[in-house]
């Protein structure tokens, strides 16, 4: 699937997660955040950078891991990305939804 955002065409899956991280840039991140009704602050960007770095290292992400990252604690993570923070943050960061079983 494809979608047009921030003036560019990007590949996404049926849930709207980008399937090619190479296509991501800051403007796309901002537009994806708008769709999730989030105004990105510097704190948001700190977290997005952290999860993108972990993704590049192929290190699996979890709420626990973010809580122990030293970047943010879990309470603040929820405050910044309400409801389902990991899902929302990974979508904005342009990386796949963290894996699970079936």
């Amino acid at each position: 699937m494809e979608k047009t955002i921030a003036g560019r065409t990007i590949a996404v899956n049926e849930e709207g997660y980008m399937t090619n991280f190479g296509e991501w840039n800051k403007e796309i991140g901002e537009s994806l955040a708008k769709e999730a009704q989030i105004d990105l602050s510097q704190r948001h960007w700190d977290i997005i950078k952290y999860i993108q770095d972990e993704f590049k290292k192929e290190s699996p992400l979890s709420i626990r891991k973010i809580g122990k990252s030293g970047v943010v604690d879990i309470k603040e993570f929820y405050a910044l990305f309400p409801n389902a923070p990991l899902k929302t943050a990974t979508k904005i960061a342009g990386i796949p939804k963290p894996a699970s079983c079936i």
Partner: protein
Amino acid sequence: MKRIVILGAGTAGTMMANHLRSELKKEEWEIDIIDEREKHYYQPGYLFLPFDMYEPEDIVKTIQEFIPKGVRLLQDKIELIDGANNLVKMRNGDQLHYEILIIATGARIAPEEIEGMKGSEWQKSVFDFYTFEGALALRNKLREWEGGKLVVHITEMPIKCPVAPLEFSFLADSYFKHKNMRDKVEITYVTPLSGAFTKPKATEALDHLMVDKNIKIETDFAIAEVDNENKKIIDYGGKEVPFDLLVTVPTNKGDDLIERSGLGDDLNFIPTNKATLQSQAFKNVFVIGDASNIPASKAGSVAHFEAEILTENILRFINNEPLKEEFDGHANCFIETGNGKALLIDFNYTHEPVEGTFPFPGVGPLRLLKESRMNHMGKLAFRWIYWNVLLKGTHIPFVSANMTEAGKHFN
């Protein structure tokens, strides 16, 4: 004499002891396996024990009886793995030098990770079923329970046998129906994931089960604490789910030995090459089963498929040949759906579970992603296979270590 040491005599370690003893010459290689415990539990049985479908004696045997002749079993506590010096240090002061180390120390539940989980209601109205003691205590509770709010809960991923809590919910529905008290029980499934099933094909095929069985679902729930006094679980976002009976799957962690030895990640799982099963820290240390951090299911079937590939890689390592990058994350799981039926799923790192036939393409007799009695019989038969075939490292006919794409409906 050269030595291979295997840490842990559970499913994965026992299989490796059997595989390697039949492959390596006794005059050249000593094989030691270390586990401080005496009992070998058939862990899939923990699902059936609470519902009186299995008796305790069905799922417990000794570790000793599955260790082959020519392998030395040491039943002592391991203090430390010293990978830089190729040593395993025992609590009693002994040291073992190894040429090759295989870590198969598994995963355990860690209820202490969540505030209040192991509180005043532990094993009164808060239970786990991932330990023999937990499953047995829960059986006794269910026998006398008069109904109310049953909450089946997953703390965080990864967990062993990721479908077990779902199976528990389905079996609970069936159990209370048979006891003519289903109308007195409200079942809620609480998960940190975005749904009961999260892969598209499985969701399409299986979502109706939750509705049919009248199981409510609460998704994206990241538990912060168990409130023992008011009997509710509370998540970081402030959501609350009240319970009369909480059946939780606590955080799963690798063994404390891994933490003591500085070999694990933040959950004590060991960073491991997902295709070769070699540890990332040391070339002569390999990891199999639940102990590794590879993104495959923590399940006996995965350990079985890994064992076939790891055996070959150890032989290659001994002969200074390049390792085969062959493990594909293959898992094969029966999912009990209650009322004497089950599903079967077969998948790997890259292929999600889909519909089809197994193990013979187009024939079956087992059907993938569809409820059937045959699948349930398969799951029950598996206990016999486990004790008599699987642990001994015998290849299961027609089931290959790598997933086959034939007979599956990918589109």
